[in-house]
């Protein structure tokens, strides 16, 4: 049953008239056409759909629109500067070749941002453990871990956080 749901997406407040049991990822991809958030599975296992809800990583295929009423959602589009520059995490993925086909990448980047937000001094091993919710079939993760380590330095140098 359709009802008004207020939320903010990438800093913009929106009130949507929608079924509260719509999956958040469906809303983002199909209603808002924010297609950077991807769907890679139907069991909430792969993490390709990871976004930030209130600054914390969540699988948007596993959250209902009704659950995020009043929340602030950030997608990959929302961390991308409008001037063509990159978020330090994005820049690190590029510099370290932390992506190949790119399909898991937005979700991986969102998870990694959450990881560093709450664990700024993570070791390589801790980064691996911290990314267990995101599957990548291309990279073997080695360069993703390197990218997150690089981003950690860059984000600290820039004053921490994102």
């Amino acid at each position: 049953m359709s009802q008004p749901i207020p939320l903010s997406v990438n800093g913009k407040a929106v009130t949507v008239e929608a079924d509260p049991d719509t999956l958040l990822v469906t809303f983002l991809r199909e209603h808002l056409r924010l297609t950077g958030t991807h769907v890679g599975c139907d069991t909430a296992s792969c993490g390709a759909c990871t976004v930030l809800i209130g600054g914390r990583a969540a699988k948007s295929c596993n959250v209902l629109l009704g659950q995020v009423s009043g929340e602030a959602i950030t997608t990959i589009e929302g961390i991308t500067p409008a001037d063509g520059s990159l978020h330090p995490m994005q820049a690190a993925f590029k510099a370290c070749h932390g992506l190949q086909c790119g399909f898991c990448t937005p979700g991986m980047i969102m998870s990694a941002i959450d990881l560093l937000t709450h664990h700024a001094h993570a070791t390589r091993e801790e980064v691996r453990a911290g990314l267990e919710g995101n599957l990548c079939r291309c990279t073997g993760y080695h360069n993703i871990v390197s990218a997150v380590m690089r981003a950690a330095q860059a984000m600290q140098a820039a004053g921490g956080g994102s």
Partner: protein
Amino acid sequence: MTQLAYHRPVSAAEAARLAAGDPEAKLLAGGQSIVPSLKLGLLAPSALIDLAGIPELRGIRLQGRTLTVGAMTTHAAVAASPEVRSSIPALARLAEGIGDRQVRNRGTAGGSLANSDPAADYPAAALALGAVLRTTRRPIPADAFFKGLFETALEPGELLTAMEFPVPDRAAYVKLPQPASRFALVGVFLAQTGGAVRVAVTGAAPCVFRVREMEEALARRFAPESLAGIGLAADGLSSDIHGSAAYRAHLIPVLARQAVAQALG
């Protein structure tokens, strides 16, 4: 998904009332287990009662030797809580090991306990620590809470509100994850409080259970060697492509010994 009703009550009492009024409704905590079931069509409730807007269900409090965790407290919050880390570090570590980062940010302690998934971690902690599970109606001791596969003592319209964990002298949780889902293939939580020891096992059977023989042996002497010679029968244990009942039976004392060593370490 079907066109179902969606409620967002602001108090536990209102939530319980809504649930009591609609036996086909489902309570929605973090949704990390329910949403996948909805997606796959395994669940088709008439309504969802979202508990996220109820402040009284959240929060962590340490009073004397009792740690109280609100039912809607996320795993991430438990893992990061100074109160939990100082009083029952094993519980913080358990929370830190549930699912993955994204699941821990959404999934809740109460949701996990009320779901009573046979491979979930929290039931082992609740049972081994001898927690009291508070509901909108009554306190339920953990020993009386877990009834079977996805089955608890909660009655229709009864809502889990908080868990009270007695702070033990020592505790530890060790699990061997199923390689794909990373749920516990077998997980052993053990806790020593005064002269008493409780050992709870998850993942190995349709429902979390205690191992009295180990408890008694460890109560006599809390050391890994005390478990020597204690074997578990495979009868009644779960068997699937990831591990036979015999393998699970084998793992229980192995992980229990590791847990004792960890608790002592």
